[in-house]
């Protein structure tokens, strides 16, 4: 079986590819090496994969490739390409977010019409919810994004639903809750905190650190993709959380414990668009396709710390 992964050299895309190759699938991977972070980091993400004969990589932009012809050749899609990140979505570069997150998704869905695609798994985000009063957040919680990024992810998800209803494309959207672990994007909190601790540098924490997050270990997010691909219900959206809710300050204490070093923290104003708390109700994914996260925050941070400690050079 041959599967397409967009955004394959990114954090989550490369991790899905690794797993699917292990499972025996053939992969066509596409990435344009967008400059949201350095190309050498993304190249490193797929370096091992490139040695595998079942991994075919195309450096290209889904908006300009002849995606229809590619879709003729695949049995499933894992659509991971996007510009991620909440903070940079405010301001004059918003058109990039609409281009990659909304137009990119539409182009892929449009090209999926009348193809024999078994499943189109679309990467969505907990940011579609915004600030929620009642926790945990279930899939029926109203979607009221508080960042421009969240608006584009919600648009992408709505498009996926529309193409399911209108053209029977078997789409599923997975709403990831803060994914972390080896190869995490360098703009994300744990990556920055661990790096600062290793290098003995000061690190800025947005807000008072008492915000809580449902952190999802990368292997669990990958497992959710594979399980949703195999058994998810077409046209549905699913939360993908890590199964526990942790304060950012608690996570920092854990990293200090793992590293045996003290973090030099500087608390600064929180950013517009960051939700105060996230906590996912993951019972729907559990019921429909047996999603059950296995890695807790301590084990997950330990793995991220060890990986980053070994690979820090790539990021400097």
């Amino acid at each position, binding site marked *: 079986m041959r599967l397409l992964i967009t955004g394959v050299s990114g954090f989550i895309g490369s991790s899905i590819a690794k797993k699917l190759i292990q499972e025996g699938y053939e992969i066509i991977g596409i990435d344009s090496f967008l400059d949201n972070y350095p190309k050498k980091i993304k190249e490193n993400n797929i370096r091992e994969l490139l040695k595998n004969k079942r991994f075919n990589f195309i*450096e*290209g932009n889904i908006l*300009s490739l002849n995606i229809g012809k590619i879709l*003729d*050749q695949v049995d499933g899609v894992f659509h991971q390409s996007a510009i991620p990140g909440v903070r940079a979505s405010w301001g004059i570069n918003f058109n990039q977010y609409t281009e990659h997150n909304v137009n990119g998704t539409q182009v892929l869905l449009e090209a999926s019409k009348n193809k024999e695609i078994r499943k189109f798994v679309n990467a969505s985000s907990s940011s579609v919810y915004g600030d929620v009063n009642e926790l945990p957040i279930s899939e029926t919680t109203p979607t009221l994004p508080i960042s421009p990024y969240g608006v584009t992810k919600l648009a992408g998800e709505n498009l996926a639903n529309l193409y399911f209803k209108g053209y029977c494309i078997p789409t599923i959207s997975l709403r990831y809750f803060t994914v972390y672990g080896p190869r995490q994007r360098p703009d994300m909190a744990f990556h920055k905190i661990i790096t600062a601790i290793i290098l003995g540098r000061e690190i800025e924490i947005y807000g008072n650190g008492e915000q809580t997050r449902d952190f999802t270990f990368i292997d669990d997010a990958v497992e959710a993709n594979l399980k949703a691909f195999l058994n998810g219900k077409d046209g549905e959206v699913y939360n993908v959380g890590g199964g526990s809710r942790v304060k950012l300050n608690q996570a920092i204490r854990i990293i200090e414990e793992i590293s045996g070093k003290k973090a030099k923290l500087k608390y600064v104003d929180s950013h517009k668009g960051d939700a105060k708390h996230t906590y996912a109700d993951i019972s729907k994914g559990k019921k429909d396709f047996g999603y059950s996260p296995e890695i807790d925050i301590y084990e997950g941070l330990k793995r991220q710390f060890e990986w980053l400690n070994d690979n820090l050079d790539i990021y400097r």
Partner: protein
Amino acid sequence: MPIDEKLLEILACPKCKGDIKLKEDESGLVCETCKLVYPIKDEIPIMLLEEAKSFGETK
């Protein structure tokens, strides 16, 4: 290891969406219509207009 045959079949010129041909030395993919060569580096086809090189007369 040369570039995968199946991959070549599904690639097209990102500019005109027309067919492309593998250069004899396998260093790139040629679109005759646009007079562009898309480079292949380490067996990776780079299908980006910004990376393409023009050849012949440029209009």
